[in-house]
């Protein structure tokens, strides 16, 4: 590939500038400020463009922006593989996005050169282009100042730092060992393996727990069944115990009934002839009652001592015979006559016998004074007054009225009572009618005689009964009273005697009856006690019968209620069963708890399985990362080796070839590492290029670049632009270099800018 010509429309100081290139070497001479670097930069910009202008940063776009502000750009013509190309570019002031580029092949537009023709044509990016075939004066100066070897290292390495490969390798090695140590069991992969082993162990344990569950379920079921059976047995035993208890209760009831029956039997045993019948008992009671009544009647039939004494006295008095009633009445008449006679006699006057019998006790009518009505009236009046007083509190008018009425009534009643009391006659009143004196004397004598006779008769009459009082009237009254009393007492005595006889007969009949009943039942106690015993025993018997019936009924009812039919002969020991049941239940609870615990563990199975899967997956990832890092490490080493194989050895050979032609002092014993760092053997010691002179270093750098270019572009070498790189060479070395370049220019195009005639090739 070779450049044919260039045309600069506007670029830096150049305006409408054309330049044609030769085959081989094109030398461009110019003083400083001529624009050699601008031309070189223009060529580069046609192939690689210009960087964007950002801010005030001073870069090539700003640096070469035309002074006259005209159309910024131009074109370059070149030939490659026999085809002629022209690449035109118009640059924007700031942005590459607004740049325009056109490419032509043999005059026709083409896009085969792509957006960056330099890359397409040279196979180099811009930096690589700068570091190889574009050797400007600045770079040479820089190389000269800091050492071309370092520049070449940068070219190859592309990054800063002298030990980049080693650093990168160490990083990868460290990372790889972080996953898996070369020795021992360290690293993430080992740790993960341990974790997986632990998880597998846990899983195996959990799986064994899981596998053990069916047996536990079966055991649980068996225990449950056994517990259920035991519960049934316990229930049966409990029922049996309850039944036995109930039978006991029933037996107790029966015992109570038997006790009652025994009592009854005992009671009935007291009466060999049978328990006294109700009739007999009632009869006995009645008899005893009658007996008592008769006895009482007998007692009451006896006259009182006073009556007896009186009767005896009267009987003595009337021992010669009691006067008849006619005699008594006659005596009474006689006494009245005697009194009358006596009165007539005593008055000495004719007495017209007229006897008016006033009131006398037993002889005349006597009106008895009766106070009861007055008392009743007084009580009513008093109550009226009291009512009136009470009414005053409610109705004063009615109260006062009642008090007034009551008071008037009370006063009236008192007055009438007193009046009546005064009117009452106290003694008999006799009334006589006066007669003439003659008649009176006659009459008096008769009357005296008659009086005496009567007195005599009366005296004799009363003497018969031992009455000697002179007052005949009193004697008459006494006799009459005695006679009445005597009659009464005699009648009473007779009546009592009759009654006594009658009662005694009845009493004896009663006693016989009682005796008969007592004998019937063989009881010889006091009859009343017998009766009470009968009655009590009968009541007791009835009570016992009722009680017995009730107890029997209670027992039967209880038996029916509790459904007691058959006494169970065998009754399991509830306590024993309960203990067994308790043990079973505890075992069941324990097993249930164990199942619960195991199930909780088993539930972790899936999580653990997931964790294991995750761990395995992570192990895979770790291994994969390890493999990737290992591969990266390996690939980096391969890359280094390839780089060496591809460039270093051929470059070294070429370098030695070119060095032999230009600077023998560089020697043949050199070493070139993968970074193209050259070390020179000086008496068995490899020395850096730092020991070289500036001129030697320039030659060394040029040889190295030519060697690199030869190897990089073996098919078709591109042009090489040299922007005054030999300012540090002495004439001798300049000649050798010029010779070499001329030699190389046979198949390479050199564009050589220089500023001093001494550097001319």
């Amino acid at each position, binding site marked *: 590939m070779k450049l044919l010509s260039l045309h600069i429309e506007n670029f830096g100081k150049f305006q409408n500038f054309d330049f044609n290139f030769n085959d081989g070497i094109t030398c461009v001479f110019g003083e400083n400020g001529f624009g050699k670097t601008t031309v070189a930069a223009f060529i580069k910009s046609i192939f690689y463009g210009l960087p964007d202008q950002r801010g005030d940063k001073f870069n090539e776009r700003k640096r070469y922006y035309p002074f006259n502000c005209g159309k910024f750009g131009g074109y370059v013509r070149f030939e490659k593989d026999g085809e002629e190309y022209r690449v035109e570019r118009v640059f924007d002031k700031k942005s590459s996005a607004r740049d325009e580029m056109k490419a032509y092949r043999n005059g026709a537009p083409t896009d085969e050169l792509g957006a960056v023709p330099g890359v397409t044509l040279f196979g180099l990016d811009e930096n690589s282009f700068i570091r190889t075939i574009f050797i400007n004066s600045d770079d040479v100066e820089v190389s000269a100042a800091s050492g071309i070897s370092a520049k070449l290292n940068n070219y190859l390495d592309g990054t800063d730092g002298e030990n980049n490969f080693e650093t990168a390798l160490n990083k*990868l090695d460290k990372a790889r060992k972080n996953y898996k140590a070369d020795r021992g069991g360290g690293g993430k992969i080992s740790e993960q393996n341990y974790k997986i082993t632990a998880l597998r162990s846990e899983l195996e344990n959990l799986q064994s727990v899981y596998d053990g569950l069916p047996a536990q379920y079966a055991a649980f079921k068996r225990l449950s069944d056994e517990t259920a059976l035991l519960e049934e047995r316990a229930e049966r035993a409990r029922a049996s115990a309850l039944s036995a208890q109930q039978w006991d209760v029933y037996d107790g009831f029966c015992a109570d009934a038997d006790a009652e029956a025994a009592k009854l039997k005992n009671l009935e045993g007291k009466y060999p002839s049978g328990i006294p019948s109700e009739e007999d008992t009632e009869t006995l009671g009645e008899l005893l009652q009658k007996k008592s009544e008769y006895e009482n009647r007998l007692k009451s039939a006896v006259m009182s001592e006073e009556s007896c004494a009186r009767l005896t006295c009267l009987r003595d008095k009337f021992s010669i015979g009691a006067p008849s009633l006619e005699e008594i009445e006659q005596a009474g008449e006689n006494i009245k006559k005697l009194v009358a006679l006596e009165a007539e006699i005593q008055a000495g006057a004719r007495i017209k016998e007229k006897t008016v019998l006033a009131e006398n006790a037993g002889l005349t009518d006597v009106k008895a004074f009766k106070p009861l009505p007055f008392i009743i009236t007084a009580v009513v009046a008093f109550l009226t007054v009291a009512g009136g007083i009470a009414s005053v509190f409610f109705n004063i008018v009615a109260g006062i009225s009642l008090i007034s009425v009551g008071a008037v009534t009370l006063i009236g009643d008192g007055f009438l009572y007193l009046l009546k009391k005064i009117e009452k006659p106290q003694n008999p009143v006799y009334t006589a009618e006066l007669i003439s004196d003659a008649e009176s004397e006659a009459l008096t004598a008769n009357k005296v005689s008659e009086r005496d006779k009567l007195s005599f008769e009366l005296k004799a009459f009363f003497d018969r009964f031992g009455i000697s009082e002179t007052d005949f009237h009193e004697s008459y009254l006494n006799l009459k009273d005695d006679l009445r009393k005597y009659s009464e007492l005699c009648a009473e005595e007779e009546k009592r005697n009759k009654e006594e006889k009658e009662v005694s007969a009845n009493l004896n009949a009663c006693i016989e009856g009682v005796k008969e009943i007592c004998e019937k039942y063989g009881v010889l106690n006091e009859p009343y006690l017998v009766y009470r015993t009968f009655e009590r025993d009968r009541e007791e018997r009835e009570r016992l019968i009722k009680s017995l019936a009730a107890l029997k009924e209670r027992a039967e009812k209880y038996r029916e209620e509790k459904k007691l039919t058959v006494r169970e002969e065998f009754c399991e020991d509830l306590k024993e069963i309960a203990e067994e049941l308790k043990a079973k239940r505890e075992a069941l609870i324990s097993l249930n708890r164990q199942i619960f615990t195991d*199930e909780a563990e*088993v539930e972790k199975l899936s999580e653990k*399985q997931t964790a294991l899967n995750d761990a395995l997956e992570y192990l895979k990832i770790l291994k994969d990362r390890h493999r990737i890092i290992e591969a990266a490490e390996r*690939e*980096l080493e391969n890359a280094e080796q390839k780089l060496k194989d591809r460039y270093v050895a051929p470059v070294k050979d070429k370098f030695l070839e070119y060095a032999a032609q230009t600077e023998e002092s560089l020697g043949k014993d050199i070493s070139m590492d993968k970074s193209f760092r050259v070390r020179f053997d000086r008496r068995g010691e490899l020395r850096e290029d730092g020991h070289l002179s500036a001129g030697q270093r320039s030659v060394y750098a040029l040889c190295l670049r030519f060697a690199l270019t030869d190897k990089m572009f073996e098919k078709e070498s591109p042009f090489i632009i040299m922007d005054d790189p030999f300012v540090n060479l002495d004439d001798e070395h300049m000649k050798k270099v010029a010779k070499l370049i001329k030699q190389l220019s046979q198949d390479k195009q050199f564009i050589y800018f220089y500023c001093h005639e001494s550097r001319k090739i």
Partner: protein
Amino acid sequence: MIKIIHCADIHLGSKLEAKLPHEKTLERRKEVRATFSRMLEYAAKEGVRAVIIAGDAFDSDRPLKKDKEFFYDAVKAYPQIDFLYLRGNHDGDETSGGNPPENLKLFGADKWTSYFYGNVTVSALEITACNAISMYSTLSLNPDCINIIALHGQTGEKAGAGKIKLSSLRNKNIDYLALGHIHSYSEGKLDERGRWAYSGCLEGRGFDETGEKGFVLLEIEDGVKSTFVPFAYRNIAEITVDITDTANDFEAFCRIREAALCSEKDLLRVNLKGEISYDNETLAADAEKFLINRCYFISVKNNTVRKINAEDYEHDLSLKGEFIRGVIANEEYNDDEKRRIISAGLKALSGGEVE
């Protein structure tokens, strides 16, 4: 009107696939039970006559004692409701053994078993290898009845153990085909007369069971009206977030946060995708920490790839360029491995710590 609930795949005692922390795993197990209990409360309140469990009431053919006791206790608590329990592929003999409650009605594998509710007939059969072919011909239904069939298996065009050949169930006078086995609700037309439906599970258990979960309420009068009732306590969602243009992990987290529109009760899986130009080894774990309070549980899967512009290094003559070209040219590695190897190498070359 008769109301019947069709549910399935309750998976009591199930392990949870969401890789939750232990405490949340225990909590979710309780929630699965609680949702089942809550469904029964709903059934009682709505006067549901029967609950069809179309398989997999338990997660294992050897359920834990406590799970079985819970199920039986729950059934016993609602004696007015019949539980028509068809065993599924996860259920075994032990799942219905012991002393089942009287209102737990079972279906067999020997022949079609039917339960009658007026003119509504609920029939089912456990599909086994023995009856998988013959079950279609032995199914005979009264056309005058409302016929509900319950089966547990995967629908398809072939018959076999655990498979349901829908075409062979057409024109069999089926009004509603209550299916179990698939954990998401879906339904479709069986024939001119009937429809089929998977009720799905009651609660999602992992990120492979996203979407609404619940049961189907059947209201039967002249025909069968089926309504899916979303009932899960928590929803499980999965989203994919492309974080290609993010410049760093913080930008990525913010983008995930914007996309993660979920409630605090939900479980969320975020799948990250795209090419990123920064380190992505710990991105998922870091994102989970960043969004930890966003919802009940979040899981982030990092499917991003490290962005490597190989062409940038194609003409780089440095060790870096040689390294990258070497990796890219090595056919032993796949693209992902190449990206990761290059990422590790570049990080080492730039002096960073390789993880």
